[in-house]
């Protein structure tokens, strides 16, 4: 099943909703090992995306994502700004001029997004960052994709893997980002950035499920 431009817009709206609903939760997670602003940052970023959608929503998917990237870097403020900003930018490159995309293309875009995050933040798995949610989600995505599963099944697996990835950040010691200043004391807390990444996957799934497969 193809993913249309309308689906992408719905995804952004759904993500903005979810991030708003989880704003305090994310901030509370960030207060344990950071500076208590991740929820505020993400909400501000996606509110800005919503505001800037009007002017680009008739353009191709690549351009929309590029606009999201700009909105995020200019409004988020924390590390998540340039990181998600780069992610959207890299995804936009893959989806340049596209009006509709296949699950395979979505996978390529997400891979590219992860590459962007890692190029920017230099984090690998195990450092207690968003990478720990995204990387396993993409592995699950790829596996289902190759097994010929439906987009819904693919995203269900990805969301589940992201959720486990989030849980797995708890015993980790942060070695990247602000939390790394806490050293050993970062152990025992869930990473806020990984959690917001999970929510983004969840938003994709919600849109596909609502669409009915």
């Amino acid at each position, binding site marked *: 099943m193809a993913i249309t431009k309308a689906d992408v817009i719905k995804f952004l709206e759904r993500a903005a909703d979810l991030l708003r609903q989880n704003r305090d939760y994310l901030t509370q997670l960030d207060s344990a090992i950071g500076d208590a602003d991740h929820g505020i940052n993400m909400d501000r970023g996606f509110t800005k995306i919503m505001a800037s959608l009007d002017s680009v929503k008739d353009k191709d998917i690549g351009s929309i994502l590029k606009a999201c990237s700009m909105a995020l*870097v200019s409004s988020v*403020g924390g590390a998540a700004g*340039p990181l998600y900003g*780069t992610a959207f930018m890299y995804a936009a490159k893959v989806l340049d001029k596209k009006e509709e995309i296949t699950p395979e293309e979505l996978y390529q875009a997400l891979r590219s997004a992860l590459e962007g995050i890692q190029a920017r933040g230099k984090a690998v798995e*195990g450092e207690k960052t968003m990478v720990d949610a995204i990387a396993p989600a993409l592995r699950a995505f790829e596996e289902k994709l190759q097994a010929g599963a439906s987009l819904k099944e693919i995203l269900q697996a990805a969301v589940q893997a992201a959720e486990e990835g989030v849980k797995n950040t708890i015993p980790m*010691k942060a070695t990247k980002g602000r939390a790394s200043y806490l050293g050993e004391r970062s*152990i025992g807390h869930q990473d806020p950035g990984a959690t917001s990444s999970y929510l983004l996957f969840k938003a994709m799934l919600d849109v596909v499920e609502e669409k009915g497969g």
Partner: protein
Amino acid sequence: MVGIVIVSHSEKLAEGVVELAKQMTAGKGVVIRGAGGLEDGSLGTSFEKILNAINEAYSEDGLLILMDLGSAIMTTQMCIESLPEDMRAKIKLCNAPLVEGAVAAAAAAAQGLSLDEVKKQAENVPLIKVQEESVEVMEAPRGENVASVDVQLVNPTGLHARPASLFVQLASKFKSKVMVQNISAKKPPADAKSIMDMAVNGTAEKGEWIRITAEGEDAQEAVMVLKELVESGFGELEEDEVKVVVKEEAALSEKGVFRGTGVYPGYVVAPAFVYRREEVKVSASIKGTPEEELKKLEEAIEASIKEVEELKDKLSREGDPKVALIFDFHAMVLKDEKMLNEAKSLINRGLSAGEAISKVLEEWARKLEEQGTDLMKGRASDLRDMARRVLKALEGRKTDGVSVEGKVVLIADELLPSEAASLDRNTIAGIAVSRGGTTSHAAILARMWGIPSVVGLGPGILDIPQGTLVALDAADGKLIVNPSANEIELLERKQRELEVAEEELKGKAMEPALTVDGHRVEVVANVGNIDSVAETIEYGAEGIGLLRTEFLFVDRDEMPSEEEQYQAYKRVAEIMGKRPVVIRTLDVGGDKPLAYVPMEREDNPFLGVRAIRLQRLYPELLKTQIKAILRAGIYGNLKLMLPMVANLEEVRWVKTIVDECKEELKAKGVEFASNIEMGIMVEIPSAALMSDLLAKEVDFFSIGTNDLTQYALACDRGNKNLAYLFDSMDPAVLRLIKLTVDGAHAHGKWVGVCGEMAGEKEAIPVLIGLGVDELSMNAKLIPAAKALIRRISYEELKLLAQDALRLGTAKEVRELVIKRCGL
């Protein structure tokens, strides 16, 4: 002129730094812009603000950007990536500290320096470090009944752990009040009779000076005795250490698999026994008068001391003297008057006995964790352990340990000393601990008892249901919950392989070690006390290549008599039977003075009066020892070895002494072995250089590679800053070894190596290739060393050694060995 941009999360900070930097530009028109905070003034980094600042400050001469924390760097990078190519080429990000860097960059830019130069100036800016708040050094007091002395720590451990306990024990014998202050590190003074005060404030490292001050009727004597204790190095002897390599910590990754750090290898599949510590509560409700509470507390402490001492005895009886030592510390703390006084004053302020004691001990535990040295930090868990014990005693209960049935993998957050000591090691197949730390009690015990163990597995393991089947792979540092049949099979196979390999190693260790082409190398043990003589045979030692005799001489106030020494050497001779035993005569010097031998303070004890040089000054010392060895010689195969020989004359002198000894024994009609061989340690480069002449005078050489390296490279191996220099595989050292071997073999004499190098995997092939006939090492390393020797070829090693001698650095030698021998 180069422009400057300051990126910060805070607008105020950015503006402030800009203001400071501008002061340095003397109106030269350097453009400096700040980009701080978000549009709405809140904290964060804003893409647009940074981009604007860059555009404003940019000039054809270039632009330097300084940033504060993480996202500032990432956002700035994004801004730059959005700029046209030609601009990007002229913008540099700078790693300098924000304030100092900005000031230095502004000054450099104002001088019209290039972009690269401005960046360099900023990044190399000197940081003025604030000196830690200094503590007043206590005045050396004067007057009657007061005494004070400054003394330097000479033993490797410094004033921690066992030395600190000894110090407190000795200080407590005096009536005077005794204080200690580390004047090198400017620490606050500590009460020398309080183990806890000493543990927090009184610690000192090797080389630091402490001031001991006493006040009271026996002040003079107290100060002198304590000074001697410190100067004697607390009787610490150097032991060959077996290094344990530990991997970095890791955490949960795969599903149902926990990752940590293995501290003792092995593979175990068994049910989990999750140990949960019983909560001990402080009872605050039923409270008596302060007097009653104090009495209760004193009784509880009394009872706890008794428990601890019983435990200690039990452990010593069961053959765990090292574990028993842990409880020595417990007993001392429980007897600490300072602790009791602190508790007393809390009780007087209305606290119950239980509240008071837990508060005091918790406070001390926290202090240890915060201020203690790494060595003492681990002791915080001991204090908490004690608090639990006293609280239980207050309720009239005894502290019982962990009791387990059947073979299990013990899972716990950490093992408190008393829990660890109560474990029945026959029922514990493996240990999995959630907290980190390869120096924790759990890790230490695991190694001592040889139980496969992993630490640092994370708190998740505490949620594993009781009795769940788990697999512990301590070689790889992981714990698998509900392992699959395949995994179990794999681990069991690995365990069998390990057992077989160990059995083979040990079994074969008894046989001589021949290279594949039949060249025999004698493998013998280094020993530092009588207790460990017998076990060397179990490990396959073909003899003792170095019996250090210092254990007979240190930690006492009179010289051991000939009779005492004779009995000791006789025992060794009897245990070892026909196997050769090389006895080294006393090897001490100004760094390890003896109470009964006057020694002058020397600036440079390692180049001063030590070993054979000391014996020249006090020939009685040497004569007594030689006579004891000659007499014991009739019970076995003893050889005599002289430490630290520098020239021929010294050897000739000892020979006359040996002759004198024989004459005297003969005159007395005492039996002795007349044909005892005599050799020397080659550890001074001059001895290696003169080995062809020395070989004519003696029966053998033993190369002490640790000192030889130290003297050849003029490098104290304890000096952390010189770690890059000290390597016995340095080709310079190898060349000295080669000279020594050639000198000896030319006269038909044999050469051994008894330094740490002899047991090192990478060194063994080179030593054999150089022609060394005997390797003497820590007994535990013997099985592996023999196994190695059996799979290499002497002919090839000779070539290897030739090639190694031509290399330039120790690193190249090591690489060559690894490659050629497939290590």
